[in-house]
């Protein structure tokens, strides 16, 4: 059980009405993790959605056996593990606490069951998840575009370059 006031610290939940926050609060749990805790690894099935109240979590991928790249440092108010809310697909990155972290967690399978009962909640959550994906997607596309502008010869190395565009 998590209070509505705590949920309001999460930017993805800002547009959500209080009666829906109350429903989420009943499903949510507060958890504290110590520095260095690996919350999940690339390729593992993710069934927990994380909302960070305090601390910092690094999302990393391995470039090669010797080099890990930090894709993003998640800070308070942000969320990760959204795929738990839409599928139980494998994680695309590893999530590691960079400092002591206080999080609100939701079980993906329980939330997906709740979505089938309450489409208003499902709509608000899916819209929030989609907005987050959109921001991350655009940020990654900008990084690739910047790299290609500096090194145009690398365009040939990206075979599915058309997927840089948001066309579906």
């Amino acid at each position, binding site marked *: 059980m998590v209070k509505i006031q705590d949920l309001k610290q999460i930017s993805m939940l800002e547009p959500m009405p209080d009666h829906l926050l109350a429903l989420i609060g009943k499903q949510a749990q507060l958890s504290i993790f110590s520095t260095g805790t690996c919350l999940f690894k690339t390729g593992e099935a993710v069934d927990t959605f994380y909302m960070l109240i305090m601390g910092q979590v690094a999302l990393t991928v391995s*470039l090669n056996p010797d080099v890990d790249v930090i894709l993003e440092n998640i800070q308070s108010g942000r969320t990760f593990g959204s795929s738990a809310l839409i599928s139980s697909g494998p994680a695309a990155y590893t999530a590691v606490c960079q400092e002591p972290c206080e999080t609100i967690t939701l079980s993906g399978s329980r939330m997906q069951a709740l979505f089938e009962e309450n489409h208003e909640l*499902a709509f608000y959550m899916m819209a929030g998840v989609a907005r987050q994906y*959109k921001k991350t997607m655009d940020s*990654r596309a*900008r990084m690739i575009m910047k790299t290609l502008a*500096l090194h145009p010869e690398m365009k040939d190395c990206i075979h599915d370059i058309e997927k*840089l565009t948001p066309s579906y």
Partner: protein
Amino acid sequence: MVPIDLLKKIQFLADLPDDILEKIGPHARQAVFKPDTILIRQNQEQHLVYMLVSGSISINASSDTGQGLTLDEITPGRSLGVSALLGKFPATFTAVCTDTCDVVVLSADLMQQLFALDHTVGYAVMQRVARLFKDRMNTHTRQFVHALSVHPAINPV
């Protein structure tokens, strides 16, 4: 009003149940655009979702340094501007008709009004958008990691 059979030809909508498509149809319009018409300008806010029925659309983008890249040629069945359904976002690319284009157009404002009135439609569409964006975000991550792995600074010749 666009008939459900035509909406089913659009990949973005094809998997949605008929009862959802029947509610979207009255909010959609069909339009024909001449060659060289600019449908979307990079950095301008999008208000419309374009779904191509026939013709072709070229997608171009400029990097922060101003260098242009032609990234894609959109073929019938594909959609552009889906993120307008989520709110006001600046476009990340420019879309130009390279041929006479028959297009189904959705007003993002009208769709958002529909979602607010009918959460079942909103959930179905947003779930579809979230899944599409997740797949695309993972593709971008893979492209970014690949670009880094072949980057001259990381792999000097």
